[in-house]
């Protein structure tokens, strides 16, 4: 492409050129003809270089920095995975009131104090939920080298609830705290905890499920979404759903302390008979407080279908961490072996550890094929492009993080409020999966938000989130060399390289200001370093970098991890 044409395309307001129509490019069927990842769950013993380190970080962290890569590069693969799997035992401090304005002040919670211990105040539910959303973004953006936030998000998607439906901010907070605390714990225990969780009892009407009016909502999703899945190997019946709903009658909510309890008065004490899929199990109706133990009987019965549950969960984790296509080779050599171990004790941590250490995970065909979700895009940008988030006052902290939450929300990932109880379609809707994150609305907006964060995004009055791109350039080996600057930037941002021709074109049109000789950039950079307070010299360097990084942010490659 001619330089002039490139420049005008980059910056001009002109009609876009005609291109191939892209209307039908979402998968119509699973792309099983691709060269899929090979290998099983034996520990990976191949090269442990930057490519492998970054692959691990892309899939297990919300964003990472060059310093993170350097940190893990010095370890063995096994030590690196163990390090990432070692999550803190302490929980982050709860969200605080940063939402007061000059005209609207929460009368019960002073600025900077947490609201999670009450008192509840329905007039401030909206603000407190916003505070929770901002707080979650803060957890995601905090510097960290462990998998906790990625696992917590996995379970937010798996046990999906909508904060705006549940309503009570304290209950929503407790729900997400529970997920964070148990994200690497025991899966069977977690299902029990979720079953009695107040937010879930509200979201799927469990608290209204009584012997006179059984409500099947939770019972259905418990089987269809949370444990067994819906597949040829999962042949529970509509009557099983009804019987399970009867088992689960009696769980109620104490509105004073936001806990659940069992009320035998509304519990259905009749026997519940299940289908042949469950070996015609009869859960004996129990009276009094013993009725609550029927819930354990139900979960034991479901988890007795251990192959069905284990494979369903392992497949879901695989699609979350690796890729969404599972062929017979992957099923036999990855899914089933992992599931066979998982069903022994339902421990999540060894399962994820085994996947992340497997030769399959590091197969080059599994790299770069993961379309980032919006949280990946924005967290990666903030960390790699050195956007400084405010730490005080609390009102600024709240606004800044909430702004990023909105950015993710308007591009398709509204954390806290998945579209429905199935979670986000990108993780279950066959055959499109991750492709569903991107369309002609969300993709340009994603890119636009990152470019705005690069040049300055006013989040509150004149307070601005902005990247320090001169510092970004300075972290590379020789920022005065346009070739290594571009290559090392690509290596950090992308999971794949781009062609030399494209790099050449990029360099000339941005860092070389339309010229062909490298010294235009080298001179400009060195000139700036020698005169750091000269505004015009700084602006020249800044312009080159802005255009260079805008180009890299625009390319499709930046959407992949």
């Amino acid at each position, binding site marked *: 492409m001619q330089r002039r044409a490139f420049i005008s395309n980059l910056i001009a307001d002109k009609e*876009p050129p005609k291109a191939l*129509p892209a209307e*039908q490019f979402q998968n119509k069927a699973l792309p099983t003809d691709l060269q899929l990842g090979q290998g099983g769950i034996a520990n990976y013993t191949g090269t442990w270089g930057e490519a492998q380190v970054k692959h691990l970080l892309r899939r297990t962290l919300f964003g990472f920095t060059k310093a993170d890569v350097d940190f893990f590069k010095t370890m063995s693969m096994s030590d690196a995975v163990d390090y990432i799997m070692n999550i803190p035992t302490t929980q982050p401090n709860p969200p605080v009131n940063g939402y007061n304005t000059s005209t609207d002040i929460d009368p019960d919670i002073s600025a900077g104090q947490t609201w999670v211990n009450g008192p509840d105040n329905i007039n401030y539910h909206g603000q407190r939920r916003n505070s929770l959303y901002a707080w979650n973004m803060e957890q995601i953006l905090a510097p960290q080298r462990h998998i906790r936030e990625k696992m917590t998000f996995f379970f937010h998607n798996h046990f999906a609830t909508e904060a705006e439906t549940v309503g009570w901010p304290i209950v929503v907070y407790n729900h997400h705290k529970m997920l964070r605390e148990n994200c690497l714990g025991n899966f069977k225990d977690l299902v029990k905890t979720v079953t009695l969780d107040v937010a879930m009892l509200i979201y799927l*009407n469990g608290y209204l499920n009584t012997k006179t009016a059984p409500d099947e909502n939770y019972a259905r999703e418990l089987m269809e979404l949370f444990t067994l899945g819906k597949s040829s190997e999962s042949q529970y019946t*509509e009557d099983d759903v009804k019987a399970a709903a009867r088992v689960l009658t009696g769980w109620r909510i104490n509105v004073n302390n936001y806990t659940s309890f069992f009320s035998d008065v509304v519990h259905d004490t009749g026997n519940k008979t299940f289908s042949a899929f469950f070996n015609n199990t009869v859960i004996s109706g129990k009276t009094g407080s013993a009725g609550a133990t029927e819930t354990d009987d139900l979960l034991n019965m479901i988890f007795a279908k251990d192959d069905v549950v284990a494979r369903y969960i392992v497949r879901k984790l695989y699609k979350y961490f690796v890729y969404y296509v599972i062929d017979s080779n992957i099923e036999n050599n990855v899914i089933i072996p992992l599931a066979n171990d998982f069903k022994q004790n339902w421990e999540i941590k060894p399962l994820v550890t085994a996947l992340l250490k497997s030769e399959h995970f590091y197969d080059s065909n599994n790299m770069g094929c993961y379309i980032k979700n919006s949280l990946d895009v924005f967290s990666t940008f903030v960390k790699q492009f050195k956007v400084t988030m405010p730490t005080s006052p609390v009102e600024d902290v709240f606004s800044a993080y909430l702004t990023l939450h909105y950015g993710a929300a308007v591009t398709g990932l509204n954390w806290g409020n998945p579209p429905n109880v199935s979670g986000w379609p990108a993780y279950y809707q066959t055959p499109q999966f991750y492709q569903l994150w991107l369309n*002609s609305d969300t993709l340009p907006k994603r890119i636009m938000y990152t*470019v705005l964060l690069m040049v300055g995004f006013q989040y509150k009055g004149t307070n601005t989130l902005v990247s320090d791109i001169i510092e970004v350039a300075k972290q590379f080996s020789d920022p005065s060399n346009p070739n290594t600057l571009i290559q090392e930037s690509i290596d950090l941002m992308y999971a*794949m390289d781009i062609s030399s021709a494209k790099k050449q074109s990029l360099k000339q049109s941005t860092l070389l200001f339309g010229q062909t000789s490298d010294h235009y950039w080298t001179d400009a950079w060195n000139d700036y370093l020698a005169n750091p307070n000269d505004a015009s010299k700084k602006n020249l360097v800044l*312009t080159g970098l802005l255009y260079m990084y805008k180009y890299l942010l625009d390319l*499709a490659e930046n959407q992949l991890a």
Partner: protein
Amino acid sequence: MKRKDFLEKSLKAGMLPFFINGMRFQAYGSTPMLKAIAEASAKNGKVFVLIQLSGGNDGLNTIIPLDQYTNLANARNNVLIQDSKVLTLNGFSGTGMHPAMTGLRNMFNDGKVNIVQSVGYPNPNFSHFRATDIWHSSSDSNAFINSGWAGRYLETIYPGFPTGYPNTNEPDPLAISIGFSVSTTLMGPTANTGMAITDPVSFYQLVTGTVDPAPNTPMGHELTYVRLVLQQTQEYNTTVKAAAQSVSNKATYPSNNELADQLKIVANLIAGGLKTSIYTVSLGGFDTHSAQVSASGGNETGAHANLLKKVSDAIAAFQSDLEQLGIADRVAGMTYSEFGRRIKSNDSRGTDHGAAAPLIVFGTKVNPTIIGSNPTIPSSVNVDDNMPMQYDFRQIYASILVDWFDTPATSADNDILLKHFDTLPIFKTSTSVNKYQVDNQSLMQNYPNPFTEMTTIDFISPGGMVELRLYDNQGRLLSVLVKEQKAKGKHSYVLNGAQLPPGNYYYQLITANGQIGRHIIKQ
């Protein structure tokens, strides 16, 4: 260069592509439902708008069978709409609309609404996701089809699509789906800052140029996809922007109504000259397991009433806009939901997942009538009892394809709906007008009823092939009792039901004139 200058140049003409009047939307021909669509409007200029009420709309509280009121009161007293408050429909004293639906009621009385009773399909599924798939793919309950019915429709008209599209003659998106609005929960302290720099109809200028070849790996596959979405964005921006800017809406749309926000854009784009022939919009929240009606304000208020008011107000404003813009005669639309709700309400003033439900088609070219009879409500309703279907949802699709889009019937059967479905007299152009008006006396109540072993069903054949079917209380087809040529006149069938478990059943007579059904009780 200052950052501000960079910003202005780089983001010249604003940003937020496909962000019109504060609404996001996607232009596409590729979704599970609309894999590709329809330049058919280029042939006859017609547009159809699909309004999805997601979550499962409670049909019994939407189109209310007043002639069943006593049994309805027994089954669902805690969500029952007081009969005196139900909106009446001209010419149909036994049927009414929810009190919140004044807009649609007025449209009905003005001759712009067609109601089809008890739309469903055999062996209904009660999962939101599976049921939605069935509706969108137009498949049998036990079949899994990845493409959408409307997508298959386009392929019949433009084989080989999308190669060569868009082009000079066909520059427009083939289908447009208008997504949910930016929720009010997003309108926090900072959202205005984020959006203030946007121009409602302009686009972020992406870099373009050559692309590197992509390998046949998962990475190459996804990279290709992302690149094509980028190209698609550039393509459709141009035409959509031009259409949106060329005219303005003429009607006043209700505020705080996300469905109205979406339909307003649809009207704008149609009037602006887009040849796009199918639009989809949606409103969520119909999964009313609890608090469907207000505890304090009366059963005609509450969550479901608010939703129905949004639907009714939005469609009424849309219709008014179409008429003022002079395009009403080539636009029609319908509401649909993945299922109705259970006949019996639950203790939490809500209703659980059900089966068949009424469907509303609107426009100046629909037959202003009600197709089908009021659902019959048994005198004693169990928690499991569901509304049996009178019409298959694919009959509605067949009617849209054949009578609205002028698709040849053989093509509708073989290529799009994958089997034959009779059309219904929904549109004035339908040749099946007067069909499906089965005389209420054609099918007698069985006797004895309730019964324990044997019971007799009398029916009248108009001559020709006659079917008598038996369904269980969940709408599952149990048996075809009669399927043969029957001479004109009265016939009897003796049902031996000794083996049937006690409960409610439903039998249905299908003749050349249409169908009719009745409930039956086994003791």
